């Protein structure tokens, strides 16, 4: 009897009992074996005292090696996590630039600087807030994708393209009557997508993909903008056309006369335009003039013609001719006090697409018209509009201060633009005083904004010569005393240009080299991972389970206690990889730091990139030195190919918005393919029992997947081919009452299902009956109760309890479930004995005692399952009623998956972890999520909490959002250790390999979505489809890495320690 009493924990009594039983039983058995079968023990067994000591020493040694192996394995995964973090960081730092949204608003009576002029009604909306008012009303016609060269006539007809000479009115009118109209190139700031452009055109700032503001979830603009100022000052706004406006400005527009049209059907060239044309002219009639102050018409035909046909096409010509006629007619109807603005929000590239920052995409046209002669040019040659957009362009953000000052509004707080010269230069083009006044006013606003932005971000503004602060001082000095107004104007303009340059640097451009670095690091990471998990013939330790060899080896080790046996090759892999990774990382970091300090560039991401890349290269070299290379990655079985098809086809599919949009159905299709193939493969098993079980579990896997697929939350783009079932209706985020039955059904049947799966290996022993039958079941009941209470709360079913009490009860119930799952669950998992029961049946004579270890064949898997159940319990609570059903089905599918893998002998294949990863993704969709921001269930943060509390709230939202992938990640070891006995060698290495395959799947997806998002950065759907999918993939990858280290590997270690306490170490 081994004296393990060195651990005096009371909780160990179970262990001791089982271990004692097992040791006793084993001794009997060995004795018996030795007597019956001498050849199995080549040497006489040593006297039991010495043997026992040797055995103990051996066990201690094996334990120590195991701990070392574990540490190196964790080291490898931490290294992998770092690589992934760095790759994603590099890519996003080039791709997703962020900007802080400030909440301050400009105020009519409170200009940023005292005006130079004084006028009647100063500081009021009637006279003009910050500058004398010029117009009462404005009509803004936005022709989507109106590129500047579309409006410039080409005299030589032979050189004219389809889009030339079709829309000459803007050009002609500015040449003919320069005091009434002017045409200028109108440069957009990338990203040139309509949504971002509208933000820029109304706020006067540079929108980036992520504008971190107070309402992160919605698209509505919550920073100061023109429309907000108009509405605040009691002006009435009417909108006709593209419905993006209504998403950005909900509730801004006059309800009965505004008309919004769907904007994403790019095949339809006419619906939106005809709608605008139909409704705009009635509003221009004198009797209707009193119903609005600011009229927006947004036409999409030109943009759609571009997307569909490209710019050089007859359809585009026709569209431009139509626009030409439309603007001519509209001009006729404008009165003296109304300003007419016609503009494009961006251009289009040669294929008619936009989104990026190429010249053709950013060069739009701007035309302003006033019936009163008002406009001027500061030089006579400026009367002719520029021939190309490279000459005298204005920025799109310049529209905001121009419109604001012309209409007598305050300039929105975030504005970075400057007033357009032509609009303020006066008829003769020499109103320098006026120009100086508006430039000074706009610049003062910019300065105020800059100060608060830098303060909010905690940054310090540079004061070097030539910096913005310096230029401000110069401009201020120029306006002292009796200033030369022209010089003052130019000084403030220079200040504005410099500030804008600084901000552009900060916010609005893709940094292609960084994106490429990120993609490269990620790609190398995937390659390393794939090579790491590849097999060569001499490390197929799964087949090393050879009892005789084992015994011989053990005896050898027992005899020769001093020499530490050479570790099997597979055991040292993590170690050498980590060592070379660290070394490479240090060298790379040193190089990077040298580069940064040498060039004095402050470009720290480059240093990080150098560290990661050198580290990756070092590891690759080490791996190929260890006999692993890309050649043995090529699959040689149907299953290997199936894994490759699943992973690659989906990754390639992410290049298409359709396949990204329909990913949920596609995941089901692949999962079904897996189930079907396994049903077929099961028919090849030798015995009828195996065939039946194999087909049963495969079909069950298929059917459960299909059942789960009825839980849907459709994304906008899936309409009208999809019906949401996740909530009570498409427009609610509460569950229907029939859905409340689901958690109760889960509570009733899930524990029994788990029991049934454990019973097949007689593993429903040890802690399992109590934990699964009572504690887990209790948790499920509580979470069902939680959702019933939640529905009662939402539906006011319980009126006799104050709402606050009800909420308190709910939160306590939820906290109790989470405590059961994570606190009690973890404790139980750490201290649980193996799920076995040892029966010693004494036969008639003592020499042939029968020892039966119930559950011996699934010692590793059954005990580990307890950890999976803990996560499942928590996820079921956090996934809402419909999602709890999906998570229960997922758990069931995982169990049948591991059965299938075991029955069809696929443990050594990659298909198990790949399918698990696919299953995780599938259930991401089935728990009411989509790769879109709007599907994040923020309200889940309040399931176990009253208010937002860090770090708990984000953790809860992550558990809700990525429940599928997290549960899959925790379940990875089951694929390789389900139905294995304690003599299974290399458990840790099998698990880390399986985890490697699993993570490789997500890393490949991450790489693919990253590459596609970078490549398609001009695509119309970039910000709706590709970027969100990339962000999901990146988040999943990091989460899976973390869960893999913190739960999966740690759990396997705990499991191994607990099992070896009883059965000894296998290697």
């Amino acid at each position: 009897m081994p004296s393990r009493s060195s651990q005096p924990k009371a909780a160990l009594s179970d262990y001791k009992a089982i271990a004692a039983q097992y040791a006793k039983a084993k001794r009997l058995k060995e004795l018996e074996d030795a007597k019956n079968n001498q050849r199995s023990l080549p040497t006489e067994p040593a006297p039991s005292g010495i043997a026992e000591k040797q055995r103990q020493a051996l066990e201690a040694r094996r334990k120590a090696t195991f701990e070392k192996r574990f540490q190196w394995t964790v080291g490898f995964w931490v290294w992998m996590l770092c690589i992934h973090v760095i790759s994603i960081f590099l890519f996003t730092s080039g791709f997703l630039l962020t900007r802080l949204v400030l909440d301050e608003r400009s105020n009519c009576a409170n200009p940023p600087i005292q005006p130079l002029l004084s006028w009647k009604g100063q500081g009021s909306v009637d006279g003009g807030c910050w500058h004398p008012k010029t117009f009462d009303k404005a009509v803004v016609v936005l022709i989507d994708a109106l590129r500047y060269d579309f409006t410039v006539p080409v005299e030589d007809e032979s050189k004219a393209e389809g889009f030339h000479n079709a829309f000459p009115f803007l050009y002609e009118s500015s040449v003919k009557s320069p005091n009434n109209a002017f045409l200028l190139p109108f440069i957009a700031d990338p990203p040139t997508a309509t949504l971002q452009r509208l933000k820029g055109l109304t706020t006067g700032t540079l929108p980036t993909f992520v504008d971190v503001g107070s309402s992160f979830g919605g698209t509505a603009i919550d920073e100061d903008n023109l429309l907000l100022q108009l509405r605040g000052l009691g002006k009435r706004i009417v909108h006709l056309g593209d419905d993006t406006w209504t998403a950005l400005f909900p509730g801004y527009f006059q309800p009965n006369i505004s008309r919004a049209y769907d904007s994403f059907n790019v095949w339809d060239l006419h619906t939106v335009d005809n709608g605008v044309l139909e409704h705009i002219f009635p509003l221009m009639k004198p009797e209707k003039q009193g119903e609005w102050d600011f009229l927006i018409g947004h036409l999409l035909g030109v943009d759609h013609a571009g997307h569909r046909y490209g710019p050089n096409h007859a359809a585009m010509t026709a569209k431009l001719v139509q626009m030409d006629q439309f603007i001519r007619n509209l001009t006729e109807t404008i009165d003296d006090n109304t300003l007419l603005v016609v503009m494009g929000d961006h251009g289009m590239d040669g294929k008619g697409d936009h989104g990026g920052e190429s010249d053709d995409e950013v060069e739009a046209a701007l035309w302003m018209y006033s019936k009163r002669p008002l406009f001027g040019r500061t030089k006579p040659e400026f009367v002719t509009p520029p021939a190309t957009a490279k000459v005298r362009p204005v920025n799109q953000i310049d529209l905001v201060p121009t419109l604001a000052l012309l209409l007598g509004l305050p300039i929105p707080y975030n504005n970075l633009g400057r007033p357009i010269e032509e609009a303020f230069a006066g008829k003769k083009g020499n109103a320098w005083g006026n120009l100086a006044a508006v430039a000074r006013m706009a610049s003062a606003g910019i300065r105020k904004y800059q100060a608060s932005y830098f303060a909010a971000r905690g940054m310090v503004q540079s004061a070097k010569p030539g910096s913005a602060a310096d230029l401000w001082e110069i401009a201020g000095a120029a306006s002292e005393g009796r200033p030369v107004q022209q010089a003052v104007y130019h000084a403030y303009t220079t200040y504005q240009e410099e500030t804008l340059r600084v901000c552009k640097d900060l916010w609005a451009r893709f940094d292609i080299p960084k994106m490429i670095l990120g993609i490269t690091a990620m790609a190398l990471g995937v390659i390393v991972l794939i090579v790491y998990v590849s097999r060569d013939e001499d490390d197929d330790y799964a087949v090393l389970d050879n009892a005789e060899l084992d015994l011989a080896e053990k005896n050898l080790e027992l005899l020769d206690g001093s020499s530490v046996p050479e570790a099997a090759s597979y055991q040292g892999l993590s170690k050498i990889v980590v060592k070379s990774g660290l070394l490479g990382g240090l060298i790379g970091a040193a190089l990077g730091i040298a580069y940064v300090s040498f060039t004095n560039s402050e470009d720290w991401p480059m240093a990080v990139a150098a560290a990661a890349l050198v580290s990756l290269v070092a590891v690759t070299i080490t791996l190929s030195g260890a006999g692993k290379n890309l050649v043995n990655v090529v699959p040689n079985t149907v299953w290997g190919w199936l894994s490759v098809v699943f992973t690659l086809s989906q990754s390639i599919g992410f290049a298409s918005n359709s396949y990204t949009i329909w990913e949920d159905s596609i995941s089901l299709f692949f999962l079904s393919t897996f189930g079907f193939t396994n049903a077929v493969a099961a028919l090849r098993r030798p015995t009828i029992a195996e065939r039946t079980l194999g087909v049963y579990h495969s079909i069950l896997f298929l059917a459960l997947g299909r059942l789960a697929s009825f839980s849907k939350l459709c994304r906008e783009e899936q309409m009208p081919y999809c019906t949401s079932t996740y909530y009570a209706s498409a427009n609610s985020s509460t569950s229907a009452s029939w859905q409340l039955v689901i958690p109760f059904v889960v509570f009733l049947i899930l524990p029994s299902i788990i029991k049934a799966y454990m019973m097949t290996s007689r593993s429903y022993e040890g802690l399992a009956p109590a934990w699964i039958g009572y504690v887990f079941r209790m948790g499920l009941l509580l979470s069902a109760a939680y959702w019933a209470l939640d529905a009662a709360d939402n539906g006011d079913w319980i009126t006799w309890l104050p709402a606050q009490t009800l909420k308190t009860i709910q939160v306590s119930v939820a906290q109790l479930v989470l405590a059961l799952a994570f606190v009690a669950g973890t404790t139980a998992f750490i201290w649980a004995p193996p799920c076995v029961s040892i029966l010693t049946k004494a036969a008639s004579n003592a020499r042939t005692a029968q020892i039966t270890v119930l559950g011996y064949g699934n010692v590793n898997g059954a005990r580990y399952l307890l950890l999976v159940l803990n996560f499942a319990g928590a996820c079921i609570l956090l996934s809402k009623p419909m999602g709890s059903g999906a998570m229960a089905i997922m758990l069931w599918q995982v169990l049948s998956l591991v059965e299938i893998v075991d029955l069809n002998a696929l443990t050594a294949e990659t298909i198990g972890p790949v399918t698990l990863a696919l299953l995780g993704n599938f259930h991401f969709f089935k728990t009411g999520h989509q790769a879109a921001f709007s599907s994040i269930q923020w309200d889940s943060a309040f399931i176990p909490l009253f208010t937002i509390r860090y770090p708990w709230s984000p953790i809860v939202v992550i558990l809700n959002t990525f429940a599928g992938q997290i549960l899959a990640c925790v379940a990875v070891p089951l694929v390789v250790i389900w139905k294995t006995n304690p003599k299974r060698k290399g458990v840790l290495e099998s698990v880390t390999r399986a985890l490697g395959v699993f993570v490789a799947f997500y890393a490949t997806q991450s790489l693919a979505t990253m590459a596609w998002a970078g490549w398609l950065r001009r695509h119309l759907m970039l910000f709706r489809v590709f970027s969100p999918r990339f962000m999901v993939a990146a988040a999943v990858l990091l989460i899976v890495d973390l869960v893999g280290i913190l739960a999966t590997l740690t759990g396997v270690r705990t499991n191994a320690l607990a099992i070896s306490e009883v059965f000894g170490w296998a290697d």
Partner: protein
Amino acid sequence: MPLVDPVTMSPPAGNAKTKDLGLPTQAIPTIPTPLAQGVRHVHPILLLSFFLVRFNALVSDPVSTMWTSLPVVVAIQSTYAIVCLPAAGSQTAKPAKKLRPGEKKSASSDGTVPNVAVTTVVALVLTTLATSVLHTFFVLFGAPLLTHLPHTSLCSLYLSLLGLFPLFYTHGVSNKEWLEILGARAPFDEAFGGLMGGCVGAWVGAVPIPLDWDREWQKWPVTILCGVFGGYVLGKLVGGTVAFGRRFG
């Protein structure tokens, strides 16, 4: 006639005849008469041309087109089976007959040859019954459960008619042989190759459905049917020639 194929991973089908019982099923060659060989080669052309002719109708009205085309496809498949394939039972009765040209005539007049009409009818009944199983699998792969029932049913009927009917005709209901066929370890011949091709074709046929091209032909189940026909013809061709007698794994 590539009956003895030495380049197989498993024992060549030709060897099996010497020690047949308890051993894997053999690949079934088409009947070597000139008529049968002719029909065998015309059959895929006929099938594909018919499909192409009906394609536009299929796109505009899948269900009724599939209904009205059914008799023609049944006729094509039955003729092909009767003329080119040995009926179930004739294989075990005379496994070696095709190797010896001298015995061919006597084999055809042999009284033990099963009744072709009965075999055909039984095979057609089995084909129809199998449709429901295929329909279930279509649904499990994501086909609509409650809507488009006639679409899915007819589509699976076609898969059954192309992929399964020749197998029912040649193998009857032999347990052992069907275990091998469903386990995908039967040796490749025209019938089994056709089934494999049809299934893979149906799988690949699902690929274009999600694309947002707004094309009429993307509607359910047109692409699947395209895949089934294309895959069947290709599988039959490959199974009857280069892959003949080989096995998976």
